[in-house]
């Protein structure tokens, strides 16, 4: 922009440099040790439960729900059943759900199974298009996969990409999240450590535009700390974990 902000930058940095040179250490009681080495963790050791059980228990505790589908061929069936629970199907009009592109969901025969129930996937290509946007905002169910899921906190991580809208996990009242077992980690820290070791962490964070960590349904406790669900994001979050190995 104008010349002034550029000067603001240099003045701020120069002030900081000279102050930090002068006042060393700048703190009253500095804690002398260095930057801690990952993994840093704040979790109690988890019990003897499996990752899926831990994930499911945690998500349930947070007003979400979770199920494990063992056979890969049943996954599409369960998704269809869940959609029918949430929204009326089989009426005169087709039921549409807001979704990531089927190729991003890694579920065999998903579209065909849903079509039998007259349910189709709406995969937006550009949410800036007003018609696409309005239509996406009118749908009650969103389906997404995950980049990773974390058992100890019942959390998921989502990365936007072509075919993977942010809207599908944000606008609808119901969020159906599909988690391949191979992407389930005990904690955030395990995932970060793996990416860091492979030298992929920095690039992944930078290139995705936005990483979203989501833990259960949208909620607020602003009204006298009463828990209310579905403030802006989904009110209902259901996870289907399936064995992809």
């Amino acid at each position: 922009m104008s010349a002034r902000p550029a000067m603001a930058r240099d003045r701020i940095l120069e002030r900081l440099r000279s102050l930090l040179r002068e006042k060393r250490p700048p703190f009253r009681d500095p804690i002398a040790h260095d930057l801690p080495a990952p993994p840093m963790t704040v979790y109690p050791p988890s019990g003897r439960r499996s990752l899926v059980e831990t994930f499911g228990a945690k998500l349930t505790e947070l007003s979400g729900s979770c199920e494990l589908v063992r056979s890969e061929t049943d996954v599409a069936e369960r998704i269809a059943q869940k959609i029918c629970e949430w929204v009326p199907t089989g009426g005169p009009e087709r039921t549409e759900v807001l979704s990531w592109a089927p190729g991003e969901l890694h579920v065999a025969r998903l579209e065909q199974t849903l079509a039998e129930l007259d349910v189709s996937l709406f995969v937006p290509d550009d949410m800036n298009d007003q018609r696409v946007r309005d239509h996406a905002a009118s749908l009650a169910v969103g389906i997404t996969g995950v980049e990773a899921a974390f058992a100890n906190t019942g959390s998921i991580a989502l990365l936007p990409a072509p075919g993977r809208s942010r809207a599908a996990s944000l606008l609808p009242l119901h969020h159906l999240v599909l988690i391949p077992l191979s992407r389930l980690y005990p904690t955030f820290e395990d995932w970060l450590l793996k990416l860091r070791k492979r030298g992929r962490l920095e690039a992944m964070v930078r290139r995705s535009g936005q990483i979203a960590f989501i833990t259960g349904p949208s909620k607020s406790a602003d009204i006298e700390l009463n828990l209310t669900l579905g403030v802006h994001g989904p009110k209902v979050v259901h996870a289907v974990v399936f064995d992809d190995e």
Partner: protein
Amino acid sequence: MTVDPSANFRTRVEQALGDDNLRTALDRATSRLRGKRTTAVAAIDLERLRDEARAIREHSIRRLPEMLEQLERNLIANGCQVHWAETGTEATDIINAIARQHGVRRAVKSKSMTTEEIRLNEALGQEGVAVVETDLGEYIIQLADEPPSHITAPVLHKRAEDIAELFQRELGMHPTTDPTEICAAARRQLRGEFLAAELGISGCNFAIAETGTICIVTNEGNGRMVTSMAPVYVALLGIEKIVPRVEDAILLWQAVARSATGQETTVYFSMSSGPRGPGQVDGPREMHVVLLDNGRTRILERGYADALLCVRCGACLNSCPIYREIGGHAYGETAYSGPIGAVVTPLLADNPATFRELPYASSLCGVCREVCPVKIDLPRLLLDLRHNLTQLKASPRYERTAVRAFARAAERPRTYQRLSRIVRWFMRLLPQNQDGDVSKLPPPLSAWTRSRVFPKPATPGFRELWRARGTQDTTSGDG
């Protein structure tokens, strides 16, 4: 709102203490938040977490200039536009210019105390941009035309009944005090705003230097909305919000969640590194980051770098016996209340003496230091600040005269002895309670006894004891 933030300190405190509804709301909310925090931190190795969190924040503040340059470099490489502002006015000018450039009329904002600090809504409003607060709590107080009273729970001073009444009046909601229905009314209203806004604005909880990433912590999802749905997104952050690595942000996020609300994590944690990538479906086409000083380098200059470690969790507010009685508005016209607010508000001001009472809004009980996830020694900062304000001659003239007179008397044993005898004799004439403490002093000393008693003089006095001891064998131990 019964507390007028622009009134003087004593009036504000009296207004707060006189409002039973306010005190009910404060008591309910802070008790629950404290309880939840206690449970959440008992489940983990809290000391390890505090040590790690503190080390990360210390590292960051020590290397601010290098890390800010690294952050800027990475943000630009990610496709963001970076702006620097020395003052609040410079920051609002920058954001106004961005709004003008895109013909923005409607903006949505997720909760940000930094935008409160620079009064961004007012500045954009003057340019004809309507800013809608989207955090449920912030939305409620925006409807009520009040400032927030807590860093993380802005509407903590209102009871459910108060909020229901406000929604009936402002949104035509049918009469109910059911939080679910109040919440649904807000969802309907705000959903339209999210989809129509041309500009999304947020603050920043942590900025990651190594990747150029702005992190936002929310539970409602409004943080994801404002960073994803509007075509232009602006993040405003104080220059101290920086951390070196991705892992540091993830750790501090969990530290904040446990300390603020007793959650293991918040529902949403959004890490925005740049505008929408090629082929992506949604996300902003432009992302701007405004780096704000507005007194932060002055905090460093004034010797209070410790205050810059703060991660704004609000645990010190919830546990402070003063905050729990008077609430946030009694701290005056500032975005920051409670113990941390009593430190940073005077320090951010051009003239700290404007807020000279705030460091005294503390009993120095030390609970704020115990709950702080980054181990800020708040009582010590409050004491140092009292000291500095006295040096600045910010205390009232009569107080300075009285302290000077006492110092002179205390340096002269005979004078001191004579004076204390007079005082003892004089105090016997004053009204006393059943313990013998003086319950009412004459003006101007009555200011002391208005809210507490003046302790009775010890009998026997020190000198009498000393004389009595002197007659015994002085070598036989010193007790």
